[in-house]
């Protein structure tokens, strides 16, 4: 390839941008890690918060976080996958409806999380009488995650060549078994990526949960109890509790570790899946 002066300038600009991103990431991560490292140990992970969270650990908060994510995913994944199948496999039956639904999902994906918080507060907490609870929070997050799940499942379905579908039809496979045995397995890596993105966004969410799942930092006994997630805990400790910075940093560190773990697992799973698909 030929090189010109613009090329060299562009390359320089690219290196500078990349360096800047790395520097900023390093600065922020170092700031979080540096302060949090000494506090994270087994007692922190397995203990309950004491003294408004300044002392003790985060175990009940981790449990609430998992429960909220669980509610979110059990609602968002089946509905999302179903909707994606309808849009990509049955879409040609009602073009206008399909376009309308797609457009509304695009808007939904862009709605600020705090607006979902308002909506969740009005619908789940008040109108449906669920109060501040893990269920309210999880359902609110499910509304947020839905467009993401649909979009990535659709991507996955689209990656299946048309010939497969034709071949399946020619073999006389019913539509259900085509879907179950051919299309959904093929869409799994895409769905997985969507799930990971969704879980990541949900884990990081604070604004929407403040008004829906509440502040209670105890062990939840059911999904109709109020419970706070890790992000809400971090916010509360750094903005509401004097001397809460230490545990706030430690909680942030745990969150970062969780995110790295989830990202790695997903890329690992996607790799394994791809290899298996190629072999068969």
């Amino acid at each position: 390839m030929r090189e010109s002066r613009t090329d060299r300038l562009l390359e320089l600009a690219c290196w500078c941008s990349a360096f800047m991103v790395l520097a900023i990431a390093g600065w922020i991560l170092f700031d979080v890690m540096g302060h949090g490292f000494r506090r994270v140990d087994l007692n922190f992970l397995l203990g309950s918060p004491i003294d408004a969270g300044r002392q003790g650990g985060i175990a009940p908060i981790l449990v609430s976080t998992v429960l909220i994510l669980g509610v979110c995913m059990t609602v968002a994944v089946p509905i999302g996958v179903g909707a994606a199948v309808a849009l990509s496999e049955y879409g040609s039956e009602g073009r206008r409806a399909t376009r309308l639904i797609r457009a509304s999902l695009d808007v939904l994906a862009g709605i600020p999380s705090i607006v979902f918080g308002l909506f969740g507060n009005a619908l789940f907490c008040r109108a449906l009488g669920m109060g501040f609870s893990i269920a309210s929070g999880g359902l609110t997050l499910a509304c947020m995650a839905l467009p993401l799940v649909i979009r990535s499942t659709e991507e996955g379905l689209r990656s299946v060549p048309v010939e497969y579908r034709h071949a399946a039809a020619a073999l006389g496979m019913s539509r259900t078994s085509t879907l179950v045995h051919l299309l959904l397995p093929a869409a799994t890596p895409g769905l997985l990526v969507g799930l990971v993105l969704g879980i990541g966004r949900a884990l990081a969410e604070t604004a929407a949960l403040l008004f829906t799942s509440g502040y209670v930092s105890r062990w939840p006994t059911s999904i109709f109890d109020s419970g706070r997630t890790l992000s809400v805990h971090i916010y509360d400790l750094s903005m509401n509790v004097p001397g809460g910075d230490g545990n706030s940093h430690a909680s942030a560190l745990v969150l970062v570790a969780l995110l790295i773990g989830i990202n790695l697992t997903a890329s690992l799973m996607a790799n394994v899946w791809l290899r298996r698909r190629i072999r068969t």
Partner: protein
Amino acid sequence: MNENIAQTNPRHGLLLALGLLSLLVASCGQSRVTSQSANRLTLTGSSTVAPLATEIARRYEDQHPGVRIDVQTGGSARGIADARSGVADIGMVSRDLKTSESDLLAFTIAGDGIALIVNRANPVTELSDEQVVAIYRGQIRNWSHVGGEDRTITVVNKAEGRSTLELFLSHFGLENSEIRADVVIGDNEQGVKTVAGLPGALGYVSIGTAETDAARGVSIRLLPMGGVEASVSSLQQGRFPLSRRLNLVSSLPPEGLAKSFIDFARSAEVADLVAGLAFVPIRP
């Protein structure tokens, strides 16, 4: 094969969607019944009282297995409204009840005050009430006018709806519309962090928060008010001018669990919790 599918009526889909939705509604309606059992108490209201109420509730639960007490924050106004409407069994209010709220019963559980805070690097040691008013009105804009260095004053104010703001305004005879703020903050700790980061800032927060933070080495200093040192001990002696009571309120004379909890929260058994959060225990 495709034709069969094409015939599935889209209306069926709509019906199913509605069915799912109604299922959701039904299942939630049920949960509401189960959550209001006799062993459950809900407190909502002031974010100043909430950490204290949470700690008291935890100790109460330890002594009474099977009881669950949920504490949700949301400001004093929410505490009043929820106690009135019955959404909460007990409301938390970080000020005295107004005359328009005399239909409610208030039970004081602790005392608190509001302190002016400046950055530790600021050499100014005292501001008169008039100076505070002039600064908040934007008539004095530089620390050199009140005996400090030549530095612009950054006025830190609280967001609308908080009782700390109401109390501060009424003490100094200010209207919120006259205040020329440079930073508006939500919770106490945001105010502390803002002032700690800005050498020229002046703000006001709960004394307990400020003293705890200052003792932990955060770069802020409490200013005396009306010549009285701002500290929990001067608050305890009843000398500090800008003080308030932290109350639990209820619409009916409390009975059963609610009464037992309120009595517990006012007893000497929780004095260490009150002091631990840098509030003032009530005198029995």
